């Protein structure tokens, strides 16, 4: 284990942080433990009283405690260090794994630890009696562990490994109810869409590694801020390729299609995936590589910004027409991820991470709240909900808190983070994008209010009698509601901007804009957009008549149809990518396979079988077997004769014995 002390080398300017001491040295524990726990759950989980859930809970609670301590360390003095373990070398290439303990990683550890702990507690109850309960917790633990591998990674290679592990775990979890074709298709879709994006990431990593000669992220970042020519020449390409990878995991338009379908998984999975462990990976990657983008690939940032803004707007619009409660939240996630990516694109590192931070809490809250509702009414469709505020008061209150936080009203978390993004866009002079982001804030408020009204207001339209979920499920909601209220207070311009210091505590200095005081133009635009959105939606869906008729009043058929079909993206993919691939390409590959590959393989097979027969007959049967048989049969014949000596008569034996004695005695006498 090597603690590379690059502080003097990498961080020009005064180091305002420590190396984190023993806690940082043992951070590998929280990365490795989930995998050990997953193994234990797999093999022994079924024999335990809680079917393996207790091991998952204990592990995740430890991760939560450990990351809280790291966060505490980071808050009081700042922590930044890297640890490398050299596994082996191939030529000049060192295969290294390790872990990073710096502001960015610690923030991610904490988000994963907190959200996962609450989701796990929730899931023990939510999943009670479901199929493959134990396996579910295995995958869930692995999922959290994979994300920790990703965010703890000091090298691009380990990052890629974590990245793919997250993909695999999401596949397992989305397809948890794989007996249903739809669910397994959704899992497949998520996996393949991500895979397509991963190709970009992989090529990007190869390009970076070849041009810098190292896999270490911090060294790549160092080179990118020090005008290394070989890196500079490929910076734009590498920047875009990495962003393509991020587009898959962080569901950016047009690769967002997997995420809404991923709702097929159980609700705790959705909560975890949308808040902490999967979709944040792309934003994390961009944030981790931020000095690179800023230093050399600033043109790539324009692409990032464009896609972020398109995503936040386009996905928000689809959310308005959804009837499935979870899908509203899913598109909302896509849209909020658009905000984060747009923030990175506009050069606002802290703003993006701040939104990631607040979003993690209130989106987890909203998903768990939706899960609580779904658990009570046994359907996802908001058409069959309504009036639940009376039956489910706790879920209702917490859901409202989450909604307000997401819509961005002060003093809840979303207000501060969204405001910072808007302020950054405004400061960067992107007036068009700023306008779209404000419109996005309006859309966000609108669809969330619509969802709340359809779910909790009016009269109950479903069947049966829904009732409040029990405390194992509502307690995480209350805790998350607390976070959704307070998480934004760690970064209030002009009052306390601790969060900025947390996440900028890195070995590679971050140069970015973060507002020292409120940008009142951006603030009031965002706030007004949010308020108008809420007010308009409340007016249309609640005051004008029954909630379920609200859609009819604002419906413009052609637009509605376009949105309901999700801009025909899926159809487009099917018509122009999937089906052509399946028909043409698959045919060609099939021909190639049967005529060339198979034939070659068959030829080898026939030759090998002929040779084998030859060897069998001549060498094996004729040589070895024969020799062995001969030796055994001769032994047998000899034995048949010798055995006659054994008559069972004691006197004969004594005769033989005495004759022997006499012969030997005579010999001795004669010789001596």
């Amino acid at each position: 284990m090597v603690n590379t002390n690059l502080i003097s080398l990498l961080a020009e300017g005064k180091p305002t942080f420590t190396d984190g001491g023993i806690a940082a040295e043992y951070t590998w524990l929280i990365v490795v433990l989930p995998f050990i726990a997953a193994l234990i759950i797999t093999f022994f989980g079924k024999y335990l009283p809680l079917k393996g859930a207790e091991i998952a809970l204990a592990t995740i609670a430890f991760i939560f405690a450990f990351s809280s301590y790291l966060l505490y360390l980071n808050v009081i003095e700042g922590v930044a260090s890297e640890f490398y373990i050299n596994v082996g070398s191939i030529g000049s290439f060192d295969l290294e794994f390790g872990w990073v303990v710096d502001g960015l990683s610690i923030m991610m550890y904490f988000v994963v630890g907190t959200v996962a702990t609450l989701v796990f507690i929730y899931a023990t109850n939510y999943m009670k009696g479901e199929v493959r309960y134990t396996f579910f917790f295995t995958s869930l633990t692995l999922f959290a562990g994979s994300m920790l591998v990703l965010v703890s990674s000091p090298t691009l290679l380990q990052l890629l490994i974590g990245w793919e592990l997250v993909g695999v775990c999401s596949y397992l979890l989305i397809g948890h109810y794989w007996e249903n074709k739809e669910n397994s298709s959704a899992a497949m879709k998520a996996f393949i869409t991500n895979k397509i994006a991963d190709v970009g990431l992989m090529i990007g990593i190869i390009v970076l590694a070849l041009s810098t000669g190292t896999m270490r992220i911090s060294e790549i970042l160092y080179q990118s801020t020090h005008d290394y020519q070989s890196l500079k020449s490929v910076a734009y390409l590498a920047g875009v390729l990495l962003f393509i990878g991020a587009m898959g995991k962080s569901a950016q338009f047009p690769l967002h299609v997997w995420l809404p379908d991923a709702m097929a998984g159980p609700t705790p999975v959705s909560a975890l995936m949308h808040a902490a462990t999967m979709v944040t990976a792309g934003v994390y990657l961009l944030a981790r590589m931020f000095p690179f983008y800023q230093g050399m690939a600033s043109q790539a940032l324009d692409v990032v910004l464009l896609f972020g803004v398109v995503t936040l707007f386009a996905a928000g619009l689809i959310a308005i027409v959804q009837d499935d409660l979870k899908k509203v939240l899913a598109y909302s996630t896509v849209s909020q991820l658009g905000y984060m990516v747009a923030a990175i694109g506009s050069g606002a590192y802290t703003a993006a991470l701040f939104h990631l931070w607040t979003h993690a809490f209130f989106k987890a809250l909203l998903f768990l709240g939706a899960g609580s509702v779904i658990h009570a009414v046994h359907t996802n469709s908001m058409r069959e909900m309504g009036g639940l505020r009376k039956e489910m008061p706790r879920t209702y209150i917490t859901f409202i808190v989450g909604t307000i936080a997401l819509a961005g009203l002060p003093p809840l978390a979303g207000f501060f983070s969204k405001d910072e993004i808007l302020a950054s866009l405004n400061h960067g002079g992107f007036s068009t994008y700023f306008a779209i982001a404000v419109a996005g804030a309006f859309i966000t408020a609108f669809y969330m209010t619509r969802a709340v009204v359809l779910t909790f207001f009016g009269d109950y339209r479903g069947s049966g009698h829904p009732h409040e979920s029990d405390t194992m499920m509502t307690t995480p909601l209350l805790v998350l509601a607390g976070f959704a209220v307070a998480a934004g207070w760690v970064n209030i311009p002009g009052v306390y901007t601790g969060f900025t210091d947390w996440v900028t505590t890195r070995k590679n200095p971050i140069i970015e804009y973060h507002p020292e005081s409120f940008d009142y133009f951006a603030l009031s635009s965002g706030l007004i957009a949010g308020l108008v959105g809420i007010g308009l939606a409340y007016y249309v869906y609640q005051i004008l008549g029954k909630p379920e008729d609200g859609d009819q009043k604002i419906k413009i058929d052609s637009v509605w149809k376009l949105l309901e079909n999700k801009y025909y993206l899926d159809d487009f993919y099917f018509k122009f990518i999937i089906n052509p691939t399946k028909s043409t390409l698959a045919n060609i590959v099939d021909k190639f396979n049967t005529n060339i590959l198979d034939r070659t393989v068959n030829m080898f097979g026939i030759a090998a079988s002929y040779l084998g027969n030859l060897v069998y007959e001549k060498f094996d049967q004729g040589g070895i077997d024969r020799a062995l048989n001969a030796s055994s049969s001769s032994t047998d014949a000899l034995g048949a004769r010798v055995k006659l000596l054994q008559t069972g008569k004691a006197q004969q034996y004594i005769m033989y014995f005495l004759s022997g004695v006499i012969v030997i005695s005579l010999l001795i006498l004669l010789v001596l």
Partner: protein
Amino acid sequence: MSVQPFLIAAAGLFSIGIYGILVRRNVVMVLLSIELILNAVNINFVVFDAMLRDAMLQGQIFTIFIITIAAAEVGIGLAIVLMLFRNRKTANINEFDLMKW
């Protein structure tokens, strides 16, 4: 004192014992012959002990051990013979060829 006559007597006794073992058909007689061989050995022990004038009388002490063991052996031997006789109704040693191939 000459040891030769004693050794000759012992050898004679030994030969008689061997003859008995090889020739007699009755198991009891075979056992008796074994006793004769043992006693031939005893005589040898005592004779050589006396000849060498061993201060610790090792030869004679050995003889006593052999007598004791011979008694035990006869006890076991006779018991086996008794059981065989009960099962086979005969004491003919040629009938007892159970340990054959």
